[in-house]
């Protein structure tokens, strides 16, 4: 059978169209009606609450914690991941041989399931682990790690930085490889030392890569789930509570479908607005400095 013209295109595109109607448009419409109701997922009775779900979410201490923690995680994760991935990229870039070996090796953490890594972290930090014994023999004491809000935040941030750095390093690496060698040669002739070259040539020309990594990393901070879900359950004292934990908890542990969907909408709004603002700020900064 030979299909003619129009039909071929529609037929080949149909897998997407069917899937988008069923699993995108339909749930999208449903979410708009869900947020107006109080419904426990089971009962045939749904109570119309208007904007009640939003009112509750705006005054909820749990939602505020999730909102606040996202920026707390961001303040740790984003600078750390930018520095570490840039360092990894610079190292790989300057190696005369085995570039690929090291690039692939640094990328390996990205493959890890957050669950498996959480298992390792829990083991290493458990009270009578070899690591804590070592700390106690050195300092006489060991932190309470996941039971301490400060350390729990740091541990979860470190896990995410560890996972992402090798991936983002590839982005910086591509940026570094795109910088023409002649620029460095000309600068060297003018007597610029390697630090000056780095500051005046490498960093400015890496601006597009920097921008990409920044936006990716910020977006990720709004979707933290696996690590705190497995390790801390959002605690201690909500120090590692996140948007997705709150949505999961409300919708699937307390079975509050409408409220859970409402928190999800707020999560999406917070993500969208935050990324928009940060992008504007970084773009304005880049433009002032004359970066592209």
């Amino acid at each position, binding site marked *: 059978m030979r*299909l003619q013209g*129009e*039909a*071929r*295109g*529609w*037929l080949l*595109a149909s*897998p*997407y*169209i069917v*899937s*988008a109607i*069923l*699993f995108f448009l339909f*749930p*999208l419409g449903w*979410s708009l009606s*869900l947020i107006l109701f109080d419904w426990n997922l089971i009962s045939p009775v749904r109570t119309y609450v208007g904007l009640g779900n939003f009112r509750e979410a705006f005054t909820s201490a749990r939602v505020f914690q999730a909102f606040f923690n996202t920026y707390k995680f961001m303040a740790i994760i984003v600078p750390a991941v930018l520095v570490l991935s840039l*360092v*990894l990229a610079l*190292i790989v870039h300057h*190696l005369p041989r085995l570039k690929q070996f*090291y690039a692939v*090796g640094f*990328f*390996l*953490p990205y*493959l*890890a*399931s*957050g*669950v*498996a*890594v959480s*298992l*390792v972290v*829990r*083991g*290493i930090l*458990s009270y*009578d*682990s*070899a690591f804590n*014994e070592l700390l106690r023999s050195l300092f006489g004491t060991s932190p309470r790690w996941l039971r301490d809000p400060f350390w729990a935040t740091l541990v979860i941030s470190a896990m995410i930085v*560890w996972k992402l750095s090798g991936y983002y390093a*590839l982005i910086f690496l591509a940026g570094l490889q795109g910088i023409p060698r002649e620029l460095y040669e000309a600068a060297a002739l003018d007597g610029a030392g390697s630090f000056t070259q780095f500051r005046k040539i490498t960093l400015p020309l890496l601006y597009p890569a920097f921008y*990409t990594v920044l936006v990716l990393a910020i977006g990720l901070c709004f979707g933290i*789930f*696996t690590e705190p*879900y*497995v390790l801390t359950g959002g605690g201690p004292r909500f120090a590692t509570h996140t948007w*997705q934990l709150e*949505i*999961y908890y409300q*919708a699937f542990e307390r079975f509050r479908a409408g409220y859970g*969907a409402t928190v*999800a*909408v707020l*999560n999406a709004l917070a993500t969208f607005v935050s990324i928009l603002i940060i992008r504007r700020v970084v773009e304005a900064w880049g433009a002032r400095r004359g970066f592209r």
Partner: protein
Amino acid sequence: MSMARKKTVKMAALYAVATCLLLIMITPYLYMLLQSLAPWHEVDRVFLPSSLNTRSYRWLLAGGAEALPRPWLKSLGNSALVTTVVTISRVILGAFVGYALAVLSFRGRRVVQNFILFHMFYPGIILLVPTFLLIRAMGLYNTYLAMILPGLVSTWAIFMYVNFFRSVPKEVVEAARMDGAGELRIIFQIMIPIARPVTAIVFLFLFMERWVELLWDLIVVRDPTKQTLNVLLTTMFGPYGGYPGPLYAAGVLLTFPIIFLFLLFSRRFVQGVSLVIST
């Protein structure tokens, strides 16, 4: 010191730093592997076990403690099944739709294209609760289909193929048509072979992503015989608290297949990753 000598020292230092960092980056993997092979009384208590044995694996693959039996091997199979079906479907359907949008011209093509962009950037988290309700209403709660069906098409895969196919000269497709080739033959015998760098990268990223999916699989499947290894491991942190060795063995089963797969394709990956970055 001579210039050449100085340079050699510098390079040696660079390799030393690179190797140290590499070791740090893979420490969690090494730790997991060593602890899964350690005698049980040494698990987490020592960095390097005094001897290695496979007790944790035998215990795990025999189904776990008699008091807490869990289908570990089956869950590994479940992960493989769900991940493979979803990833292959995403790649093939991605190529189909990508081909339709990049090569064929039909009315409404631009609308579909723009809609895909909107879809791609629409925050998926909003859809979590209603999609779950939909799956439940379709009677798919606690089934493999619940994990498979919503993920059969990936907008990102389509996007990648559209970008690639657009760069293929029109003459290639026209020549094939002159020879009497149908659309499916053009896709499978011409387009997919030349898109190999894209396919490699799309396949790897989607496979990795699906393999470690947690939230969705956790919500739609509660039956342990159907859970993926990732979900089963998550639920057993507490119950198996007294059996850290076997948990590490499960961690190894979850992590090392994907590492092997990745290393197998790593050459293609490094070549192709710029395709992802440039978009």
